[in-house]
């Protein structure tokens, strides 16, 4: 399977690795990563489609409509940790070689 881990995807993974139990909002992720919505959301969509992210709707503030929130699934957390570690050690080959679950590598 083709591996495509863009720098933007790594930024998003990194943002989610900060306090992994917390749910995160799209706009907050955009501010933290510096990514525009047109770049951020396709990454979030692909991650959700691959079951790396779980999503839910929640009323964030009274009187305002619910917001869409995101956080890692256990599988996503494992993948992100392995990917970011591999990237930090300059060893993205580990991911390509299959040390990270194969179904997760195409983001």
């Amino acid at each position, binding site marked *: 399977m083709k591996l495509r881990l863009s720098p933007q995807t790594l930024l998003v993974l990194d943002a989610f690795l900060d306090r992994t139990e917390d749910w995160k*909002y799209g*706009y907050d992720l955009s501010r933290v990563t510096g990514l*525009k*919505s047109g770049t951020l*959301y*396709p990454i979030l*969509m692909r991650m959700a489609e691959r079951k790396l992210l779980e999503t839910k709707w929640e009323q964030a503030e009274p009187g305002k409509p619910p*917001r*869409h929130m995101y956080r890692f699934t256990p599988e996503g957390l494992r993948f992100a940790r392995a990917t970011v570690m591999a990237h930090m050690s300059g060893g993205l080959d580990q991911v390509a070689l299959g040390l990270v679950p194969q179904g997760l590598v195409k983001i």
Partner: protein
Amino acid sequence: MGAPRTLAATLLRAAVRLVPDVSREWATAMLRELDFIEGDWAALFWALGSTTAILRHAAVVWRTWLFQNGNQEAGMNNTGKKALGVGLGILSALALVGCLFAGLRIVSILFPGLGLEHSGWAYWLAVMAIPEAIFVVATVLLWRKKGPVAAGILATGLAMALHIGVHFAMR
């Protein structure tokens, strides 16, 4: 609420209505985030990026649906596939012209000082020159791998050029 924010909300609401169910949840998510963005221009840029992202997502769904349905219905012979390709090319070309025209309208509304509303060259550039240039490049790039789509784009480009030619000949 300023004009850019109103435009942003309108754009995303239209996207929510337009896109297939699979993409609608994401489009709604992007729309809801608008309420939390400070600054009207930031909201507009958010909406523009979001709309692009959601339309690209929806395009994948539409394309899958189109080709799956076509295959199921008639065993999808070669001619049918080619006709679909040509149709897709024509639709893409028309969508491009529509987007450029809408973009020009948006700019002329947001920046009335530019005087684009009454500028013939701006419309000539946006609706004819730029699309025709893109059609030529797209046709050349797609000709070998996606011939029918390239043919659809080319046909649209030729029809537009003919239309303009007739228009000028009649004046």
